[in-house]
């Protein structure tokens, strides 16, 4: 329902150029840290920290927290992905300000209400969050970074994510087109 407010946002860059640049960022991540990019790992760190803070006893017995502790020494917030995701917020904001795209907005198809969009965003987020833990990483950490190092699991997860989204696209078409 946007009343086509005058927007002077700059156009997006060519997707193939964007892809090469993203690939170089991913290459840099591997060169520096020996691991690729990620996103859901930072959320896991935050959730583990919250569990440790709010319910330390229950948290100490949680298999989820233990499993995290085995893979990471030190504070769960002092991890590579937490710092990287803080950078993502800064980088996205910088790009958006340079391009004139900073605006509070609920983006949705004109056929649906903002309320419906937000309900689906929440439900989608819950599923994606859960799935990213089961799948040991999301589109960034498992699919994209996994593919770059030719991980079999990375390719399998990538195909499962995109295959499912294509298979279900018909049922959710009203939300988008």
């Amino acid at each position, binding site marked *: 329902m946007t009343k086509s407010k005058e927007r002077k946002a700059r156009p997006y860059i060519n997707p193939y150029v964007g892809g*090469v640049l993203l690939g170089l960022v991913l290459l840099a991540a591997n060169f520096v*840290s020996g691991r690729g990019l990620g996103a859901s790992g930072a*959320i896991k760190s935050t959730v583990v920290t919250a569990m440790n803070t709010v319910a330390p006893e229950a948290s100490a017995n949680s298999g*989820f927290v233990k499993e995290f502790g085995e893979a990471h020494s030190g504070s769960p917030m002092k991890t590579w992905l937490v710092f990287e995701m803080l950078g993502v*917020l800064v*980088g*996205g904001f910088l790009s958006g300000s340079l391009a004139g795209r900073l605006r509070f907005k609920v983006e949705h198809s004109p056929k649906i209400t903002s309320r419906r969009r937000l309900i689906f965003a929440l439900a*989608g987020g819950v599923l994606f969050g859960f799935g990213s833990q089961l799948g040991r990483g999301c589109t960034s950490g498992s699919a994209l970074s996994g593919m770059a*190092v030719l991980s079999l699991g990375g390719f399998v997860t990538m195909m499962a994510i995109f295959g499912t989204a294509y298979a279900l696209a018909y049922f959710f078409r009203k939300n988008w087109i």
Partner: protein
Amino acid sequence: MGPLSVNEIISENTNLFLAFIIGIGFGFVLEQSGFSSSRKLAGVFYGYDTVVLKVFFTAAITAMLGLLFFSLFGWIDLNLVYVNPTYLTSAILGGIIMGAGFIMGGYCPGTSFCGASIGKLDALVFIGGLFLGVFIFGLGYNLWEGTYMANFLGSPKVSESLGMSDGIFAFLLIIIALAMFWVAEWAEKKFPREEY
């Protein structure tokens, strides 16, 4: 030489500082490519905007080739680079659940942070959902630990599994990507698209 932190060429704190810098690059490129818009992201599933496919596969190929060349030049020891382990059951199931989340929510975790950084409220709500989903996984961990650990195959490379060299696989992947780009360009001409 590389990876720098694994070879202890840089300190742990420098590594974290560089994580922040690399993150800025990550967020900047995602936003510049239009990944802060859920309708642009979802477009790939309806053919009206295939930016996701183009950026995603170009990036995967660029990084893959970069790593192969860096290894060839002796700039990086690929044995020290983390290869994601393969737990077949959870890789498929997790992917299916993420795919459902993608088409419903219109974002993935990385892009939702990018969207939120320029003021997309739907992205912010999606992030709230992410935290909830991760928390639910943590709460019921005992219930799905068996599934989570099932069918562990080690950390095989897809090239090994297919019985070919890394280089040949990379070459085939590039051919496949080029074919997909061709279909993507065709789809964008065929399906109407609006600005959002």
